[in-house]
Structures are given as structure tokens and as C-alpha cells.
């Protein structure tokens, strides 16, 4: 019974999503080729814009994710900290120290320099 309810809710949500997308498009013709080209002020492209390029903020993004993960470890740590006491503090200290070495290395390599 619960499964059936879940299926009905999911179908309704999916149906509503599709309906919202379909409603404004139902009288719209497929856009012509001129509108599918990128806007270049009257100019034309030689190739598709789908190309490989260097995401220069990528190392910074990786560092951000590393810090996010660190914060996620800190939440369960905060729960057991009262129970474990000093040992938990030391363990977290070691974890942060190792992470800090990584940051110092990245800093030296110029990761934080915006290009």
C-alpha cells in the first residue's frame, strides 16, 4: 500500500514536471536554424562552440571540495568529542595538520593565483 502511494506521488510529480514543460511549448514551432546559431552580432562561427578548454579555476575547485569534506568530518567528530575528550582533539589536530601541508604545497605551486 505504501509502495503504491509512493508510485502515485512519483508519477504525479513527474507528470506535473512534464506538463509544465509541455504547456508553453505546445504551439511553438521548432526554432529555425538562424536561431539555433550563437549570437555574434551578425557574424558566423566556423565550428561548434562545444570544445575543450582549460578550466583554470579547477585546482581551486578541488581545494574547495577538500575543505567541504573536512567540514563534513567535523560534524560527527563534534558529536563524539565530549565522550572521547582529548584523544578526539589530537586526532582532529593530526587530520588538520596533514591537510594544512597540502594547502601550503598548493599555495607554493600558485594554485591561489587567479589567471
Amino acid at each position: 500500500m505504501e509502495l503504491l502511494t509512493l508510485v502515485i506521488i512519483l508519477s504525479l510529480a513527474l507528470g506535473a514536471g512534464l506538463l509544465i514543460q509541455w504547456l508553453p511549448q505546445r504551439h511553438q514551432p521548432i526554432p529555425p536554424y538562424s536561431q539555433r546559431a550563437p549570437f555574434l552580432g551578425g557574424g558566423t562561427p566556423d565550428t561548434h562552440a562545444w570544445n575543450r578548454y582549460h578550466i583554470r579555476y579547477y585546482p581551486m575547485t578541488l581545494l574547495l571540495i577538500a575543505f567541504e569534506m573536512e567540514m563534513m568530518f567535523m560534524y560527527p567528530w563534534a558529536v563524539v568529542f565530549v565522550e572521547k575528550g582529548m584523544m578526539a582533539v589530537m586526532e582532529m589536530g593530526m587530520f588538520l595538520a596533514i591537510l594544512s601541508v597540502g594547502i601550503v604545497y598548493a599555495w607554493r605551486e600558485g594554485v591561489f593565483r587567479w589567471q
Partner: protein
Amino acid sequence: MAVSWLRQLAARSRVPVFPVWGWHDDALLARLALSSQVELVDSPRHASVLLVIGEIPAALRDGLRRLHDQLPAPFAAVWLRGAPIVALGAPVQIARDDQLIETLVRTHRELMLGQRESAPRLLPDEPPNPWKGLGDDGHGGEGMMGGNPYGRPMAMNMQNDLRDGLTLDSLTFRLGPFFPLLPAGLCAEVTLQGDVIQSWETRHAALPQRLDPIFHAARQHPVSIADLELARARHHLVQLYRALHLAGLEHVAHQAVSLSQRLTSSSRLDGLRRQLMRSGIFRLAAMDGVQLDGELASHLGGPAARAAGLEVDLRTNDASYQSLGFRPQYRTAGTTRARWEQWLGEIKQSLQLARQAERDNLHTANTGAVETPRGPWADERPADGSALLDEVLPGLEWDEAMTLIASLDLRAVADAPREASA
């Protein structure tokens, strides 16, 4: 019911207009920018009306056709001071400037309420290259990268990277002639690698600008220095508006263009300068991007030359200006920041000169040559400087390049003055 309600609302909204400038007209631009009924948009995708001002040269008409077809239906093309492209069925043509805003509002309203047919498309609806059914996967050719999916080849690695040797796919396209970040008419073939400009080849120069009639009159007979200086300040304020609009600082841009329209000799620049400082524009790294050397700057003349340390100004030879104690302002850095500061400095100086000249009712003494806001006009009019970009832009990041272009007045001066605005 719901759709009709939405249509009613859309009909009452500000008219999203994409302007195409066949003739540069600062006064008209200011009027459109300040109108509460019109919204100037930077992409045809957001417009319901394409406004074409002046005659479009034959070489640029293909670009206009492509732009025309990029407006989403329903849309209309409105033509002011020029003949419409022949292929259009029933174009909206305006004879007088004072009918412009009213016509734009009426056209938009009729379009939204379904009382007017959308303008017909000018180009055939077909891909730029044939591709359907060609190749093993129907992608338009042989091999993994050899096809033309949707009629266009994929980007390929063609040139070495300028910055750090990490070579990736280069993207080549033609930009303009009606790209809102460039002066109207300027058309270039650009190759990008990521956000770095690999090469920039100017294909068509920017269309000439029509200056305030007083600069033309100053070459014929003595004119009031107060009026001449106010026209100069107005010109620089509209240039500032363009650059601020590009930077996305709409509020300050609006303030600049509004000041240009109500400018008198007693106007003050302090409020605008304070807003500019608060906006943080001078802290942008792109403002220090590239330094124009003396040779390039002297080719452009005017504020661009003076911002690069050249103390050149025809006003120094005029006895009336000498009696006002005029000395040209100049900076040494030659960067985008220096040119912005030069504009602000020259606007302030022009207002000060106008106040002094108005008190003594002074007129110019020299009539053969005049220092226009674009540069010196002695024997020859200030010429187009678009080709200078080919030299300066390669190696710059996109934001630096666009900020640089906005800080330069590259357009030549047309032989005819601007029409008096209604």
C-alpha cells in the same frame, strides 16, 4: 485565458529593443536609454523590436539579415532615417525622431496582443552545411571528428596556446558588425583559445560617428566656447555610459547618460565620480590590462593620446583658450584606467571652461582647426582606428579586451554633422 492575461501583461511591459546603429547618434542613444517605456537589450533573443537607425552599408546587410532572423517570434523591425531591406513585407518606417518612442510602444503592444503579424524571416531555414544522412552515424562526414553535426564542424586544435603552452581547441568566429560590445560596423575574425584572444583580424571598420554640429561650425566661424565645451563633455559622458553599461553598472551608467542630457555649465561631476568610486570599477584587474604606447595612442589622438602621456591638444593654439589659462590634462600610464580618469578629468575641465567662457561670453579664435572629442581635426578628419585592435588584442583575456575596446573611441568622424534631435 491564462495566455491572454499574460499577453496583456507583456503588452504593458517596457519595449525590449535591440538597436542597430547605421549612424551613431549619441543624442538618440541617450533618449532611448533614459526612456521609461523602452528597454535597450544586448541580445536579439531578448528583444521584440529590432530598431535600425540610418542607412546600413551594403557590405553589412548580410549581418543585419542574420541578426533580424535571430529575434524570436513575434517580432517587428522598425526603420528610422533609412530605407528598409527590400525583402521585408510590411516594415514599420518612421519619418521623424519624435514619433520613435510612440511607434515602438505601439508596435510592441500590437505584437503582444496578436494584432500584428510577426515580421517574415529573411533567410532560408537550412543548416550552414549539408550533413543529414552522411557518414556511418549520420553525423555529416567520415571519422570521429570529420563530420558536420547540425551543419557545422567540431572545434579542432589548430594553434598553439599563447599563455602557458596548454594547447586546446581553438574557436574561430566572425564577430560583428552589430555586436553590442563593439562600435557599430566593426567586424572582426576572432580566434579564441579558452578566454584568451589568439588572433583578431579586423574585417570591416567601425562606422563613422556624426559629431555635434558645433564642432563642424567651429571650423567655419567662431563659436561659443561654453557651448563647444558642453558638447565635448556630453560626448565623453555618453562614452562613459557605453563603458559602464558594458561593465554591468546600469545604475551609474544611467546617471552618466542622464547628466549628459541635462548638462549646463553649472553642472557638477562630483556625484557621478563618487558613484564610480563606490562601484569598485577602478579596482578591476582588467583596468590595468594593456598599455597603449605613444605611437598607437598618437594615431588615435584625443583623450586616448593624452592618457598615454602625449600633451597634444589643438585648444592650446587658440588665443581665447589661452586667455582662460587652458592647459591640457594628461596622464602617463596609457592603460584603460588612465583613459577613464582622462575622461572624468576632461569632463570636469570642460565644465570649468564653460563656466569661465560663459561669464566673459568668449568665442573661439581659431577656425581652421578644432580639437574634437575624438581628436584633432585640422586638415584631415580624425580617421578610423579599428585596425589598431589587430595589434593590441592578441594575448589578452576576453574581459580585458572588451574593457579596452570600450575605453577607446575608434570611430572616424563623418563629414556630415549629427542631425538636430527632435
